[in-house]
């Protein structure tokens, strides 16, 4: 075909409607196929913000330990909106949208700190710790001129305040009016795993990491719901037996499929029927300084790793002795931030504290394990872009959504999309 034919064809063709305006049809009647447009379509992203992040679900905000005293605040991002969590005068935690009721300016610019009030820098509208509008300059005008209308009611113009709930030091909030308590929202099974780490002991924040990853936010969730990849991609995990599919494992979900856990037990560095299939397994690689992998049992039961994914924005990481909240902050259809808050317990021994700092070498943007994941997500999105009409295959372990006592399955990804489809109306 020469170029003149191409032009003629183009002239005669009816221009298709923009892709994002055509009806989006899920490629199958289940969730073992995921259409690529869920990772690229800006209209889908907007719908996610409304229906997932801006609706009645409980979203992770921060740890109570980050704001222990009255006036302490911490900024956080829930979906693509920014909030400030602040400890009020009564000791309660308020979660306020970081937007002045006047001209929508952000009223809080520090990530973390302590204050008596929030003052908008633009026109100095001043808000209390519960978001109530305390005052504004020239409300009554000047020498009888100007000012706000007589019927202006300050109590109607506070910072938007979210519904808030807490459990064992973890703060959640919702833009809507949640119709379930957090405990019901998580379900008994997930609550059990949650309470395993958050057992009521005081927490200590050890520090932050944050990375900006050029991929859709859902790929992060899928990554932590996919134990199949861990045995193949993560040479470091596999070699040292931290997470490998020949070890006793489980993938479990709540009744809706929206939350999940991957559970496993540490194994040894040995060549066997399973590791022989893993190109990743290196029988001869050993660490010179063994302190990097010196895990100590600290939780009841024999699981040594529990990775919990809580809809819609949180991963609770317990890998050996590293504990972290990984908060997912979607920025647009093809970009998200992963915000890590590492923590320990107030009663940790100095040795345990040191162990947590060392094992953090496996996690974060330079993590000897999680580095593989951020790079993999970049490559996933690069393969998805431009291939909107193709689908991803999620059939390992069958097509159903069931809890499984092994790792050779993508069941938790299917569970996620089962719930996603119902919420998104897709």
């Amino acid at each position, binding site marked *: 075909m020469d170029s003149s034919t191409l032009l003629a064809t183009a002239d005669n063709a009816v221009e298709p409607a923009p892709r994002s305006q055509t009806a989006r049809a899920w490629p199958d009647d289940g969730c073992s196929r995921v259409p690529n447009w869920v990772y690229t379509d800006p209209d889908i992203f907007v719908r996610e913000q409304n229906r997932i992040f801006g609706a009645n679900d409980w979203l992770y905000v921060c740890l109570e330990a980050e704001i222990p005293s009255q006036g302490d605040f911490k900024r956080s991002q829930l979906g693509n909106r920014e909030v400030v969590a602040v400890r009020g005068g009564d000791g309660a935690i308020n979660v306020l949208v970081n937007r002045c009721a006047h001209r929508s300016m952000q009223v809080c610019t520090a*990530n*973390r700190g302590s204050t008596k009030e929030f003052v908008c820098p633009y026109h100095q509208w001043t808000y209390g710790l519960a978001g109530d509008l305390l005052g504004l300059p020239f409300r009554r005008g000047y020498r009888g001129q100007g000012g706000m209308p007589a019927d202006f009611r300050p109590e109607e113009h506070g910072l938007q305040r979210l519904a808030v709930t807490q459990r064992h030091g973890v703060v959640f909030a919702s833009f809507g009016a949640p119709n379930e308590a957090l405990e019901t929202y998580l379900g008994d099974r997930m609550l059990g795993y949650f309470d395993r780490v958050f057992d009521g002991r005081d927490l200590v*924040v*050890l*520090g*932050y*990491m*944050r*990375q*900006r*990853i*050029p991929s859709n936010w859902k790929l992060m969730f899928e990554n932590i719901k996919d134990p199949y990849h861990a045995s193949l*991609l*993560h*040479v*470091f995990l596999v*070699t040292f037996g931290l997470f490998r599919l020949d070890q006793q494992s489980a993938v479990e979900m709540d009744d809706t499929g929206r939350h999940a856990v991957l559970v496993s037990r540490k194994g040894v560095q040995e060549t066997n029927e399973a590791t022989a299939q893993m190109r*990743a397994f*290196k029988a001869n*690689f050993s*660490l*010179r*300084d063994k*302190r*990097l992998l010196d895990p100590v049992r600290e939780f009841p039961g024999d699981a040594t790793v529990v990775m919990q994914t809580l809809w819609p924005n949180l991963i609770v990481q317990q890998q050996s002795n590293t504990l972290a909240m990984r908060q997912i902050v979607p920025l647009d259809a093809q970009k998200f*931030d992963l915000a890590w808050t*590492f923590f320990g317990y107030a009663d940790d021994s100095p040795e345990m*504290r040191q162990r947590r*700092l*060392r094992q*953090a*070498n496996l996690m*974060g*943007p*330079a*993590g*000897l394990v999680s*580095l*593989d994941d*951020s*790079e*993999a997500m*970049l*490559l996933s999105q690069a393969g998805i872009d431009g291939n909107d009409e193709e689908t991803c295959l999620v059939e390992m372990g069958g097509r159903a959504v069931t809890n499984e006592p092994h790792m050779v399955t993508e069941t938790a990804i299917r569970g996620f999309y089962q719930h996603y489809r119902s919420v998104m109306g897709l």
Partner: protein
Amino acid sequence: MIAAAPGLDVALDLRARLVDLYCAYDNALNDGDLERWPELFADPCLYKVMPRENYDQGLPIAVIYCESRDMLVDRVVALRETALYAPRIVRRITSAACLRSIGEDGLRLTANFALFQTTQDRPSEVFLCGRYQDLVVDDGGVLRFAERLCIYDSTIVPTSLVYPV
């Protein structure tokens, strides 16, 4: 280049040896010769990469945290043998180091760094910038880092930090 804080009298030959150390560090990493990198540290040592946010708040978590030369070697071997990452060139420009003090434990210096990352099919971009806080010691006649804290200014790392800072 090594500058000295006001009032600090530093012999020219010591300055020259420090320049050699800083130059060797930059060259090892800019040339992708990671195996040379641990040799520039004393043993034990402390090598940390952390966001300024953590440093300023006294929070101990670092994205890279090594306490011995062996841990540095382990990281290099892990990067070579186990990690998956797209090919990249990371080039650092290090400012003149400023010798702040000379104490019994060694020489305290600071310097600024800028890291530029180039990946396939993308223009070069500023990746991280920040400052080194160093403790340099005479280790059997050779100057080495006993401590190197790499404190980056941003809270955010673009995608992944593959190579040491």
